[in-house]
């Protein structure tokens, strides 16, 4: 009698312990989200105080707290140059990292990024075409954004068409994406072949990605894109978790694997296209941030989207701030700095990680 009640309490204790450690594990993830959010705010606070126009930190903050106005040069440089640029960096970094997280999850491929399905190649082709067609014209900026957005969607449309003939397995989608990458890369090459050298250089710089053209209208569109699509991604995050158990197991749990994949693909495409049409293709963030975050906090996509998002925002913001400072008053395209900062960082993490990861 006494032994059975003893085992009873022991079992209950075990249960308590498991529950506690699980709650702790979840709480840890939430702390990470908060931590990175704070880091983003912190970096933004520093970034806004830096710039080539000489303003002291207290001046910058008094300008911000006085509300929007552009009367003095100082106010103009804070409200029209620094703030939109910083906000755009945060939004784009967040969006690309979140999109990358979900692409890696749905395609079950560690190399997947928002650009795996050819979005970047499509967008770059659109940009090159716009630059070629509107060389020196006033409406060039609008054409550039419009073409970049539209052509970013084309590869995904083609892949959707293809997967309507064949089941959307990760292999088919990734291979088709690679094909799109090459095809649009070639189209871009063709356009550049006929373009003037100046246009080619402009297209090259666009391809690296830059935040130099940030404006409040960019920020508001990017914010709308994020508000529309990030909740949709969050909503599918749990299903994408389940996809990792294998298509058959997922189906048995009521997740339509192929359909989930197509839905996520469409959402990430719209999200990515809506961001990169303003900034150019900032390549590395969407690939690398999900990996880095997965290395230290595990793979649950519901949390990973947010953690990777804030991490991506922090990364892009700091890269851009460095880019603004190193050769001030000129600024380096942010894409270059992202690669140069994150590349070695990722290599070191890969080296330090024991064999468990991948």
């Amino acid at each position, binding site marked *: 009698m006494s032994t059975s009640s003893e085992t009873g309490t022991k079992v209950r204790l075990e249960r308590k312990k498991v529950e506690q450690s699980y709650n702790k594990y979840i709480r840890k993830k939430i702390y990470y989200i908060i931590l990175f959010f704070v880091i983003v705010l912190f970096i933004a606070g520093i970034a806004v105080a830096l710039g080539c126009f000489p303003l002291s930190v207290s001046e910058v903050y008094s300008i911000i707290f006085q509300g929007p106005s552009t009367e003095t040069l100082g106010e103009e440089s804070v409200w029209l140059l620094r703030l939109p640029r910083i906000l755009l960096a945060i939004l784009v970094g967040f969006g690309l990292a979140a999109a990358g997280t979900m692409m890696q999850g749905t395609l079950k491929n560690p190399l997947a990024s928002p650009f795996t399905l050819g979005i970047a190649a499509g967008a770059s082709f659109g940009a090159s075409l716009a630059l070629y067609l509107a060389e020196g014209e006033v409406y060039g900026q609008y054409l550039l954004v419009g073409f970049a957005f539209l052509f970013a969607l084309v590869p995904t449309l083609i892949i959707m068409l293809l997967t309507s003939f064949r089941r959307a397995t990760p292999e088919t989608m990734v291979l088709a994406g690679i094909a799109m990458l090459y095809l649009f890369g*070639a189209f871009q090459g063709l356009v550049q*072949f006929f373009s003037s050298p100046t246009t080619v250089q402009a297209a090259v710089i666009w391809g690296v990605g830059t935040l130099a053209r940030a404006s409040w209208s960019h920020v508001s569109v990017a914010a709308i894109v994020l508000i529309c699509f990030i909740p949709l991604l969050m909503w599918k995050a749990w299903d994408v978790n389940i996809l990792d158990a294998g298509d058959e197991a997922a189906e048995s749990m009521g997740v339509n694997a192929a359909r989930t994949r197509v839905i996520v693909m469409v959402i990430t495409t719209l999200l990515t296209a809506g961001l990169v049409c303003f900034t150019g293709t900032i390549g590395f963030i969407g690939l690398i941030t999900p990996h880095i975050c997965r290395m230290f906090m595990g793979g649950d996509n519901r949390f990973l989207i947010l953690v990777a998002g804030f991490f991506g925002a922090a990364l892009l913001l700091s890269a851009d701030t460095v880019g603004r400072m190193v050769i001030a008053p000129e600024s380096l395209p942010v894409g270059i700095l992202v690669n140069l900062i994150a590349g070695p960082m*990722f290599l070191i993490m890969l080296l330090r990680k024991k064999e468990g990861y991948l």
Partner: protein
Amino acid sequence: MTASSETISKPEIAKTERAQISAHYTKSNKRKIYFILFLVILMFIFAGVAATLGSYQISFTEVYSILFHCLFHSVETYEEYAVWELRLPRILLAILAGMGLGVAGTMMQGILRNPLAEPYTMGIASGAGFGAALVIILGIGTDVIGGYSRYALIASSFIFALVPACVVLAMVLYRKPTPGTLVLAGISMLYIFSALTMLIQVPANPDAVKVAQFWAVGSLERASWQDIFPISIVLACCLPLLMWKTWDINILNAGDEIAESIGINVKRTRIFVMMVSAVLTAGVVCFVGAISFVGLVSPHICRMAIGADNRFLLPASAIFGAVLLLLADTIARTVAAPLVIPIGIVTAIMGTPLFLYLILKKKGEYW
């Protein structure tokens, strides 16, 4: 007795079955060899046709009489120059480069067990692109590539092509990374070097940027006999070494542990093959630029045709790469003549529909 008659006939049945299986196996291997032979013939036909095409009008028979003539005599007339000094080296370069890329792609896919692997997966292309941009933009010489800076370009792109590969290899030595980690490391190197390239392209002279950009896409424009010899030496050294390892790579496909148990040193094999492939790719790329698609698509298409046995796949994909590049170059030269479209653009536009068709048509998982 029925039973005894059965026991008598049984070994005979077994024997005929055995013979059937053996015949079947030989036949399937023969089919693979026929496929390779077919590709070789195709290559010769394409080469033969390519020699007669060009902006300078020379008739079919004339071309061949010039070829025979020049084998034993030095080049004298302008026709002879066009055929012997311009077309022939270009055709040979296309064949050699195509072979190199096809082989390197097959090996990388085999070693990394990843259908997305290609000769440039370790970042070789972006390393080479950086090396080339360095010479073109920081200008050893002018922004026109001429005598001295041509050698500097080749040397610089060859050396920088190997830098990312060396970093990736160092990782293998330092740890025991899985194929997944290796691929990720390669991608990191790719991004780092393309950023460095951009870094020197952003403030540069636009003309130089365009030259560097098109060097990176790849071109056979500058083919000359001086290129043929070094590149054939690279191929002659690397191909036999890789061919020798094909069986080991077949076994590696069964998984690292099984391969170890069969007696293959997985780590050493992987390092060896990666190193040889890297040298091979760098040797090709420094002459013709990073021509895309050939190294990725040739192994895939050949694998769909004859299966994944690397012993046959390697030569098949080599020849297929040569055929593909030759065909692409011929199209590039003729489609908008006298304008020559960069070959990398043609390979991609040509290869993509084929690739898509194969993805869609193939049932089940061939990979």
